[in-house]
């Protein structure tokens, strides 16, 4: 694998498929998405298969993840929000496992591509808009018009509010993507320092000695990256819950 920090994000065609001029090739990104889904599904199926009254290790892990997401959803969208639980739980597990799988050396990080996170965010906002209009009809549009605004300012404020609403999926996806991208680049850069210091001519014995510093940094950053992987999955979930709350109770 190359030593530069960017090539880890390269998309590689594994199985070229073309349907009607569309490039639908099975790439390494697709492979890791399938792997993520498979890991989540296997984990949940195996761990809930026993259904012991006293949960074992795996079962309590599955129950913990269920309760964590359920509490997050309930606290920000209320009991009514629980109808979106399957969506929110799938999103959380997918993002979390995709982030964690990306932490393996030589593995591809699905969430480090903007188009993937943007697709997830559009799924959320699409749900919010469709559900909001279906439930509240045109009253849902009141989200964009502040009360008591002077008529002269109405045509200025409404576009601003609409842009602000539309920027939600963008900021939601950019946040996840930028965190994963920046984290993985930083890791790779510091890891690269280790090899280049050892290989450096003219430093003699000092090269390998000094290379301990970036190595320690890499270890510390790996720990931080695990935190970020979890934190970003959590943030994505919390914001999803908040947006769903808007759809459920726009006049709350």
């Amino acid at each position, binding site marked *: 694998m190359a030593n530069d920090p960017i090539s880890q994000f390269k998309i590689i065609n594994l199985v070229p498929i073309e349907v009607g001029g569309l490039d639908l090739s099975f790439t390494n990104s697709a492979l890791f998405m399938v792997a993520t889904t498979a890991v989540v599904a296997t984990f949940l199926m195996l761990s809930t298969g026993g259904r012991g009254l006293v949960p074992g290790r795996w079962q309590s892990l599955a129950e913990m993840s269920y309760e964590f997401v359920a509490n997050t959803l309930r606290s920000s969208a209320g009991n009514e929000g629980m109808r979106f639980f399957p969506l929110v739980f799938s999103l959380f597990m997918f993002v979390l496992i995709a982030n964690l799988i990306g932490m393996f050396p030589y593995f591809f990080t699905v969430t480090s591509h903007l188009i993937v996170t943007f697709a997830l965010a559009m799924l959320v906002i699409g749900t919010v808009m469709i559900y909001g209009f279906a439930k509240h009809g045109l009253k849902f549009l*009141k989200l964009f018009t502040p*009360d008591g605004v002077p008529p002269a300012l109405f045509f200025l404020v409404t576009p601003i509010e609409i842009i602000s609403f539309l*920027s939600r999926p963008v900021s939601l996806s*950019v946040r996840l993507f930028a965190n994963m991208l920046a984290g993985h680049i930083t890791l790779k850069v510091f890891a690269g320092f280790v090899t280049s210091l050892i290989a450096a001519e003219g430093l003699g014995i000092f090269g390998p000695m000094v290379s301990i510093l970036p190595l320690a940094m890499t270890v510390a950053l790996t720990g931080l990256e695990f*935190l970020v992987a979890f*934190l970003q999955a959590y943030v994505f979930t919390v914001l999803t819950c908040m947006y769903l*709350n*808007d759809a459920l109770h726009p*006049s709350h």
Partner: protein
Amino acid sequence: MSPDENGPGDAQRPTEAELSERKNRLVRSLEERTTKSAAADKEGSSGAGHGYAQAMKLSTEFVAGILVGAAIGWMIDKGFGTSPWGLIVFLLLGFVAGVLNVLRSAGLMAEQKDRMNDG
């Protein structure tokens, strides 16, 4: 007055002691809930990367507003051939929306849904 049981047909008014006991119980359960949710809030925002996360959050909110404004302006120009006016106007509006996003996520302005109380 002997409040033996609060049966459904009991027309007796609850005594002062009962009322205050009930109030205390409600206050206690409310307190329990608020501390629990406050702890949950803290859990989400504390930790090693708190300042970093905050900076990330605010900057993406701002950039997202500008990007969406520019995209809308660009599409209007493309659709109606009004170049470059759509881009100019909507880029500025996007800038304003970005500032609004930042103020909102910093908790300095009302959320969109909060002002619909009267609606």
